[in-house]
Each structure stands twice: as structure tokens, then as C-alpha cells.
């Protein structure tokens, strides 16, 4: 079926909350950016030459610090390796200018070569560091090794790379120091502005979502590895451009600029300035690099000790870094509201349904499970599970704790989970596909523990959940949020629609459950896997969610697989029940078959087996 455009039919229904308009919200940042540009253009005439020289370098370092902040502060990738890409860009210029010669065409070719090599290396590093299942530590170790490898290559390059003394004395653009100052300054201001727009855009939220919970992202259909690799590649290219500029200005390149000491210094500057703020790392780099230049001559050993101590003090006293602490102080002094008020108001709308978007038509069966087995070492958790489910069936999985219910859910939503056997979603074999690809085949899985993005708001989380079906903008934050009817229903029933701006970490456990369910429904799945979706919800909320599930199966031919312990709930809504015991199906039949079976009474329900008509 072709992808339908997301339209906005029920616009009039939702009241528009008055708030700062987009234009007004942009006034302050635009004014700050213009002021920064003005300063950059005017400053070289006013500042002493030595300071102008140092600031050029600091501007370029700060540009690299921004990429570190985007990777680490926003996305949670602790990287020591951005210096290597800076070095690659610098050496691209140094090598071409030394061995080939200099003219504008060659300079641009060197720029392109540096950026391309940096991007290829970054893609390689990303592939190694972020393959599915890699721990964050693994990525950090690889980015730590990268600058060491690059430095070693430069050392062993003999006359070609200039070994430990690097390359110098090559020709470059004949520009005044003031001109370089303006070029580097404008580069930094533009880069900061672009990064600011990106991280605040709807696409930028995905970075924070990845930082908060990679697994949840993957099960929302987001290819986390790809997001991280692409980001790494883009950040590498930017660092390489900064390195190229650096070589053009300084007319010297040395292995230290690609080294891991520089890579670590970048992290320190970002942390001191305030990671996850963009402006903090820029200011941190400028202040620390400039003061280092002035003071390291006067206090050669003491200065290193002082910056080291400052780092320790800031990490302990101001774990968020200097800028957030300063802003909090100013806010308190002027009694301004907290930053959260800056979020644009969001209005909910109904989205045009896109069932099975991207699939070649629905299958005869929504789900086919054939001889699926799963063992952990010698422990057999699933021993040959077989069943078929048609669209429109609401199938409950019941069974004692430890029977393998959650394991079965996991096998259906992640091709790598089962030990053997085959599974088809909408007649598509899931083979060994990762979770995000199973989402594209129609799977939507809600976890047993409520998993939400702790630092995002309710509205932001829902938008992240829509990433696959309505790709977010990299430039702006939409004020409308179009969601499928089922997701809207859950949000209205539980009151989440009244808390769109609430940060998820302040939601109660039950609200987190409801939010996760709404996020999964926002995927418009055709096979909905729900692991105890009503745990922690009140009876009234359970009833409502039960009704929504019944409607989804009846009216939209959704297939729902439900793990539940509340047999009354199961009896009310299921069209079919499978009983799992010690990893095997012991009963597969109608609700009545199961509820009245002696087996269920004995191994599972105890005296609490519901009798038709009686509620516990």
C-alpha cells in the first residue's frame, strides 16, 4: 500500500492554547546570533594581535567541541575521537600543500579529500562501535583507540607525514589575520546556529530518545545504529573542515592535533561549559583555551594543576557544568520561570490511518509461529511453539510466572531472539531481522516494565513514536501532533492529553504504562504485543483499555497478543486463549474452554478462577 500523506482533519476540535508564537520565540536567539556575528566582524580591529591569533584557534577548537556536545551531551555517545577527525582534515591540507602544491583548486580538493576520508573513517568506527547489541563502553573504547592509531600512523609516516615534528612551511591562502579571524568566527557562529536549530528540532529529539532508551527506540522502528553512524559521520566531516581551516591559518600541522590528549581536552571543555547546552561548550572552550595560552607561559606547571582542580570541582559542585548553573542563578535573581515554559504548545490531531505502511499487502495470517524454540544454555524456556493468528483476533497468553510468555513475545518482535523455528508477520518471514525491521513488518511491542523516555515530555515521546510514519523535521518543531485514533483514545482515557508538557520522569508508574501503550499504538501496528499492559492501572482504566483493544481488533482487524494475569480481564476481552506451561502450549481454545479447565485451575489460578458472571 502506498504511503498516505499525514493530513490534519480535526483541527477545529482542539482548542489552541495561547503561547509565545514561533516568531517571538526566535527573537532572542536571532538577536544573540546577530550580536555574535557583529562581534566577530568588528573584534579584530579592537583586540590585540596576540589575542586575535589565539581566538582563531579557539574558534576552531570550539567548532569541534560542538560536535562533541552533539554526540555526548545530546546523544550520550562518550567520544574521545573527535580530535582524530580534526587531525585528518588538518593533515589533508598539510599533505597536499607540502607534496602537491598550493592553489585554490588544490586547497578545495584537500578540503573535500579530508572531509571524505574523515567520513569514511567515521562510518567504519560507527559500524564497529554501534552494531546492534554493542555496549556504550565499547563505542567509547573504540573512539579512544582511534586517535591513538591515527597518531601512530602519522609518527610512522617518515618524511611524508613529517613524523613527530609534523609538516610546516607550506604555502597557504594569503589572508590577513583579521580576515582569518572573521572566517573562523563566522564558521563557529553559523555552526552553533545550525546545531542549535537541529538539536531543538523534532529530529533532534530522536537523539535524546536514543540517549534515554535505545531499546525502546528500536522497538519504535528507529534504526538506532544508523542514526548513530550518520551522526558520527556528519560530526566527523565538521571536525575535518575545522581541521582544514586550522592548517590553512597556522600553516603547520602536528600529530598532537589528532591525538587523544586533545580528544580528552575537548571532553573537559564540554563538561566544564555544560554538556547538552551547545553554548556552554563553546564558551568553555573559548575561556579555557584563551586563558591557557595566557597563563601556561607564566605558570607552566601550576596552570595544568589548576585546570585539573577546576575540572574536579566543577564535576562535583556543578555536575551540569558552568552554563546551566549560571543560568539557574540568573533565573533565581530575576525570578524567571524555569526553562520548560519555553516549550511550544502542542495540539493533538487525528492522523490519516496508514495501516501496514510500506508492506506489500496484508497476509492471510497476521502472525504465524512455527516450532519456535528458545533456550538459555541448558534451560529450555520455549520448546516448540506452534500457532497461527488471524487479523481481528484478540489472543491472550496465560500461564504461571516463568512459563515463557515474555520470551515468546520477545521472539516475535526480534528475529535474533529465538534459537530455532520460523515466524511470519503478515506473511513476511522475519528471518533474523532486528526489532526496528520487525516494526516495519507490523509488530508493535509494549514491554512488561513501563519504558518511556525519561527526559522527554509526553508530547515529545509521542512524536518520537511517529518517527517511522511521519519523519520529523530537522529544522523546526511542529506545533501539531497527528496521532492515530487508538493512541488518542488511550491518551484521552488516561488523561495524558492534559499533560502533554509533563516530563516523563514525573509521571506515575501507571501513567508511564499508558504512555508506552499510546506510543506503541502510534506505530499503527498490525500485530500488537502487549505484556501486562494494565499492570498498575486502576479498574476503571483497565476497563477502558480493554474496550479500546476490543474495538481495535473488531473495527481495524488488528491482531492483539496479550499477556495477562487478570483472568476476569482476559475473559472479558479475548476471542481466544493460549495457555503456556513450562515452555509449551498446553491449551489453545476459546475463553470458556480455558477458564473451565482443571489444568488452569490447578497450575495457575488457584481458588480465584473466575466463574462466568461473577467479578472478583
Amino acid at each position, binding site marked *: 500500500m502506498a504511503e498516505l500523506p499525514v493530513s490534519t482533519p480535526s483541527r477545529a476540535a482542539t482548542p489552541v492554547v495561547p503561547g509565545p508564537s514561533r516568531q517571538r520565540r526566535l527573537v532572542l536567539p536571532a538577536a544573540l546570533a546577530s550580536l555574535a556575528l557583529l562581534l566577530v566582524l568588528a573584534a579584530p580591529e579592537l583586540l590585540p594581535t596576540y589575542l586575535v591569533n589565539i581566538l582563531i584557534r579557539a574558534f576552531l577548537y570550539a567548532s569541534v567541541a560542538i560536535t562533541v556536545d552533539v554526540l555526548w551531551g545530546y546523544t550520550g555517545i562518550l567520544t574521545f575521537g573527535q580530535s582524530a577527525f580534526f587531525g585528518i582534515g588538518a593533515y589533508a591540507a598539510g599533505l597536499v600543500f607540502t607534496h602537491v602544491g598550493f592553489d585554490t583548486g588544490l586547497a578545495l580538493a584537500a578540503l573535500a579529500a579530508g572531509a571524505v576520508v574523515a567520513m569514511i573513517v567515521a562510518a567504519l568506527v560507527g559500524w564497529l562501535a554501534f552494531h546492534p547489541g554493542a555496549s556504550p563502553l565499547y563505542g567509547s573504547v573504540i573512539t579512544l583507540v582511534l586517535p591513538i592509531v591515527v597518531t601512530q600512523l602519522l609518527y610512522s609516516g617518515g618524511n611524508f607525514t613529517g613524523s613527530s615534528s609534523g609538516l610546516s612551511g607550506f604555502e597557504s591562502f594569503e589572508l590577513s589575520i583579521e580576515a582569518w579571524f572573521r572566517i573562523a568566527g563566522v564558521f563557529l557562529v553559523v555552526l552553533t546556529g545550525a546545531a542549535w536549530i537541529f538539536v531543538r528540532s523534532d529530529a533532534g529529539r530522536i537523539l535524546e530518545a536514543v540517549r534515554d532508551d535505545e531499546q525502546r527506540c528500536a522497538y519504535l522502528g528507529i534504526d538506532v545504529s544508523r542514526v548513530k553512524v550518520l551522526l558520527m559521520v556528519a560530526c566527523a566531516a565538521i571536525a575535518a573542515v575545522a581541521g582544514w581551516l586550522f592548517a590553512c591559518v597556522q600553516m603547520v600541522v602536528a600529530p598532537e592535533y589528532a591525538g587523544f590528549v586533545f580528544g580528552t581536552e575537548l571532553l573537559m571543555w564540554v563538561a566544564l561549559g555544560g554538556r547538552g547546552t551547545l553554548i556552554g561548550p563553546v564558551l568553555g572552550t573559548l575561556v579555557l583555551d584563551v586563558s591557557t595560552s595566557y597563563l601556561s607561559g607564566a605558570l607552566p606547571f601550576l596552570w595544568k594543576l589548576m585546570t585539573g582542580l577546576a575540572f574536579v570541582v566543577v564535576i562535583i559542585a556543578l555536575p551540569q557544568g558552568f552554563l546551566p548553573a549560571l543560568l539557574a542563578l540568573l533565573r533565581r535573581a530575576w525570578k524567571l520561570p524555569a526553562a520548560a515554559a519555553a516549550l511550544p504548545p502542542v495540539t493533538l490531531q487525528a492522523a490519516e490511518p496508514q495501516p501496514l505502511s510500506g508492506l506489500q499487502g496484508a497476509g492471510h495470517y497476521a502472525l504465524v509461529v512455527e516450532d519456535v524454540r528458545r533456550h538459555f544454555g541448558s534451560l529450555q524456556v520455549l520448546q516448540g511453539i506452534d500457532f497461527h493468528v488471524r487479523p481481528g483476533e484478540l489472543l491472550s497468553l496465560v500461564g504461571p510466572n516463568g512459563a515463557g510468555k515474555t520470551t515468546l513475545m520477545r521472539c516475535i518482535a526480534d528475529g535474533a531472539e529465538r534459537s530455532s523455528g520460523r515466524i511470519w508477520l503478515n506473511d513476511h518471514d522475519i528471518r533474523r531481522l532486528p526489532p526496528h525491521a520487525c516494526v516495519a513488518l507490523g509488530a508493535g511491542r509494549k514491554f512488561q516494565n513501563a519504558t518511556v523516555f525519561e527526559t522527554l515530555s509526553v508530547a515529545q515521546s509521542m512524536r518520537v513514536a511517529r518517527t517511522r510514519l511521519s519523519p520529523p523535521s530537522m529544522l523546526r518543531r511542529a506545533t501539531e501532533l497527528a496521532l492515530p485514533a487508538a493512541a488518542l483514545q488511550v491518551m484521552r482515557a488516561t488523561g495524558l492529553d492534559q499533560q502533554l508538557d509533563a516530563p516523563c520522569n514525573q509521571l506515575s508508574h*501507571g501513567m508511564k504504562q499508558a504512555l508506552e501503550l499510546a506510543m506503541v499504538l502510534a506505530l499503527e501496528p498490525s500485530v500488537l504485543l502487549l505484556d501486562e499492559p494494565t499492570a498498575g492501572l486502576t479498574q476503571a482504566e483497565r476497563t477502558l483499555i480493554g474496550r479500546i483493544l476490543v474495538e481495535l481488533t473488531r473495527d481495524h482487524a488488528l491482531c492483539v497478543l496479550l499477556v495477562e*494475569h487478570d483472568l476476569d480481564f482476559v475473559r472479558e476481552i479475548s476471542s481466544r486463549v493460549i495457555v503456556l506451561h513450562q515452555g509449551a502450549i498446553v491449551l489453545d481454545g476459546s475463553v470458556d474452554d480455558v477458564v473451565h479447565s482443571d489444568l488452569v485451575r490447578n497450575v495457575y489460578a488457584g481458588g480465584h478462577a473466575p466463574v462466568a458472571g461473577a467479578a472478583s
Partner: protein
Amino acid sequence: MTPALELAALSSGYRGAIVVRGLSLVVQPGEIVALLGKNGMGKSTVLKTIMGLIAAKAGAVKLLGDDVTGEPAHLVARRAVAYSPQERALFQDLSVEQNLRLGLPGGRGDFAAELTRIGTIFPVLPKRLRQRAGTLSGGEQKMLLLARALISRPRLMLVDEISEGLQPSVIERLTAVLKAERDAAGTAMLVVEQNVGFALSVADRYAVLKRGEIVDEGAVAADGVAARVNRLLEV
């Protein structure tokens, strides 16, 4: 009699948001009190504040007459308070046995005897001693959590949504287990529950929390309590 737990006009919450407002509640030794309420009404926050995991904004928490307001969690725990949180707060990479042994008071005690006792409550746990806690199923992790709390022989148990994710027959057994523990050791319990049926079957008294305040409390044995509580939770 000195109450096992006394909350006096307790207020608490998170940055900027007061969640519990002037709450007063007493749990006597040997008494089981169920704290009921809809989501987001502050039930878990009450338990976390008693434990010292969240700072009280006003009011006092008293354990057996001692004011422990503001005391850090590890000191509160040393007063024989066992807290089983809603999240499965187990040491995921340790084995079932190691998790259980960590429950022994001061790390000492007759583990074999405790294990026999736990085995009669949750037969699955002694069979899984070498298994990593993180690989247990969701319901089994809940059982381990409660078993660890019971092993610590607490004077006060704070139990958050223990019935969530457990099979009906286990929940049924749990009612008997908690009552037996109370009868044998005189343990006081504050039980936060969403499952009203289970809560009322195990508790002596109940309190309903709404927007951080107690709107109703009384003896479970009174007439029509279940209907009354369910009505309060619907609105």
C-alpha cells in the same frame, strides 16, 4: 503502644511539584495497612519519603517513636525497615542466592533455615539459586524481591505493588504469607496496591489517597468497604 510508623503532616514531592500534602498516618506493630489510590496520587512517593529516598518538605516520619525525618536511606534500612519497590530493584547480575543472602540482617543468620521458609512460600526460588536474577521472568523477580525483604526479618515492611504481574494462585498465597509473617513476628506493613481485592484481603486497615491527601480511612472489616473504596477510586 508506640506506633511502628507514624507520619505527621508529611509533605513531599519532586522538584517544584508537591505530591504528598500534609499526610498523617499511623501503623501499629503487627498491623497491615493498605494505601490505595489512583495513579499519580502519591502512593509510591509516600514510601520513598519514609525510606529517606526523597526529602520530606514538611512534617515528620517516626519509626518506633524515633524521628527519622531526613535520615538517609541506608540508616533507615538499618532500623529493620524492608522496602520492596515497584521497580524490580534486584541485583540483576547476581544470582538468586546472592540476592537472597544480601537480605540476611547484617549479612549473618541461618541461610539454610531461611531458604526452607522461603521455599514453602515460593517453591520456584530454591530451585533457581544459581540462576542470574536478571534472567528470571518478571513474576519470579517480584517473588525474589519479596523473599529478600522477608529474609531480613523486618519490623516494618513497605511493599509497593507486589501483586503486579503475579499469577492469581501466587497472589492468593501471598495474602496468607504476609498475614502469617505478621502473626509470627509482629511485623508492621504498609502495602501500596492497585489490586483492591488483594489489598483488602490482606490488610487490617485501609487509607485512600487522593491528590496527596487521605480522603478516607478505616477498618477493612467494616461493612461495604470494597464497594466504598472502588467508588472512591472511580471518581
